[in-house]
């Protein structure tokens, strides 16, 4: 029982991490038809910026209490900024040229980890975090690491915020409409490109937050983290239905759980394979994703 609870908690934590990456990925693809292979790089930027700040380089930030919160905010802000710059400098000029866009994002996705490892080395760096978050708590006989709970909480907040944004604001309305029919949105007099930048900013923020909190989950940061998470995030996006935030949330939980349980009860590594099998099965049964609808 304790094992099952621990596996479930870990799977959910991992799912939360996947969701934070996949939410933006899904919106970006749904709205702009851009497969953003640089999204993992945004996560890495968030992770390294948080690590840098929490290691005492940013005045006021640190590894404990309010200092850590500041470090996470800083990391998220840097990731957001990077996403906006990426959209404005690379994606926008290549709008209408999908192949070049994909190549550009692949390039950034490769360049950022290379840059990070050139500056801070290719090895994992221990991630400083508050003592309160490195402990465990008891649940049904299992000792659950607190950081799983932090990830889950953050993902829940992001999900709720995204739903409110999409459902209650005019910008959110424009995004939902743009996911359906971009051209018609412009034909109503709306500059849909501003929605593009906005969605990149939101997606970058979520991924960078995922990077910051992923540091807690893994206990370290390394240059390749974002890239390996990105692959599973893509699986989540496809499963959840392109452009659907709720679908991404469901799929992220599913992928996280399946992966953890399969890795534990079968050979390690088979869980990753199981995810791909799950994807294939789902695509055959429900080609439009779990929810079968957009946004």
């Amino acid at each position: 029982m304790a094992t099952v609870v621990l596996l479930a908690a870990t799977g959910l934590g991992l799912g939360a991490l996947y969701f934070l990456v996949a939410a933006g990925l899904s919106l970006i693809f749904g709205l702009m038809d851009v497969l953003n292979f640089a999204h993992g790089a945004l996560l890495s930027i968030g992770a390294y910026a948080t690590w840098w700040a929490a290691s005492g380089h940013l005045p006021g930030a640190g590894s404990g209490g309010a200092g850590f919160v500041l470090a996470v905010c800083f990391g998220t802000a840097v990731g957001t900024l990077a996403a906006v710059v990426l959209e404005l400098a690379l994606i926008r000029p290549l709008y209408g040229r999908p192949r070049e866009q994909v190549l550009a994002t692949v390039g950034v996705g490769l360049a950022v980890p290379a840059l990070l490892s050139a500056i801070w080395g290719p090895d994992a760096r221990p991630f400083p975090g508050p003592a309160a978050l490195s402990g465990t708590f008891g649940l049904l006989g299992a000792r659950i690491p607190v950081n799983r709970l932090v990830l889950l909480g953050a993902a829940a907040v992001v999900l709720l915020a995204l739903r409110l944004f999409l459902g209650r604001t005019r910008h959110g309305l424009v995004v939902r409409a743009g996911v359906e029919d971009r051209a018609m949105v412009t034909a109503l007099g709306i500059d849909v490109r501003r929605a593009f930048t906005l969605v990149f900013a939101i997606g970058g923020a979520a991924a960078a937050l995922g990077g910051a909190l992923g540091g807690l989950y893994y206990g370290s940061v390394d240059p390749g983290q974002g890239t390996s998470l990105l692959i599973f995030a893509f699986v989540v996006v496809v499963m959840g239905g392109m452009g659907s935030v709720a679908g991404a949330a469901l799929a992220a939980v599913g992928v996280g759980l399946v992966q953890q349980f399969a890795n534990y009860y079968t050979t390690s590594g088979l869980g990753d394979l199981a995810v791909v099998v799950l994807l294939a099965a789902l695509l055959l049964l429900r080609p439009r994703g779990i929810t079968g609808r957009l946004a």
Partner: protein
Amino acid sequence: MSGEPLLAVRDLAVVIGGRHILHGVDLDVAPSGVTALLGRNGAGKTTTVRAVLGLVPRTGSVRLAGEETVRLPTHLLVRRGIGYAPEDRGVFAGLTVAENLRLAERPGAGEPAYDLVHELFPELKARARQPAGTLSGGQQQMVAIGRTLLNGNRLIIADEPTKGLAPRVVTEVARVLERAARAVPVLLVEQNLALVRRLAGHCAVLADGRTVHRGPAADLLADPDATRRLLGVGRRTAVTEEHPMAPPGPDPSSAAQAGKAGA
């Protein structure tokens, strides 16, 4: 046509995937009333409208109230006061009726005219929270037209707004367009010639991507040979068909003439 045209299109050309779809479309939209854009299936009517709005890459000249707009991106052109009801209706299926209308609001450009829209289409008020994708075709067309009436537009472009609708709904749409055209000039793409006769003052006819005729709509429709040659419809369908909504045309003499010609 009296006065300067509101919209003057000259030598409009569109190339998509190496294919010349439009080459030399000229079109004037009168400063009042309905101007009809006619032509057989595939003549290039929809492409013309989309090119005017900048939804497809185009060359040539598109002047709105005298100002060249061919370099403007779509959203900026539309904000100058154009309401567009596209051929496929362009309704956002996953959004509610109310959200579809709200999307057409132009913040900072005056109060949206919900009173007018709801007066013309009471159903849209009753169905405000219904997902637009679940509306009937006629109701979706009401959303599309409602969106064009929400803002104080100076030009309404409607691409086959009666396509595929039941006769009763055609009548309703025609009534709304007629009323709208009293306040705002309308560019109407339409295959229903009875409707054209009733609503349109001027017309332009396209064939194979270019303008082949321009002039008063009544004159064209009163000439069965020209109608058949330009629009590819036989004498009977062109002028004598007992259309369910055939009210007297705006100009009684042309209606009488049309009746005679078909006899």
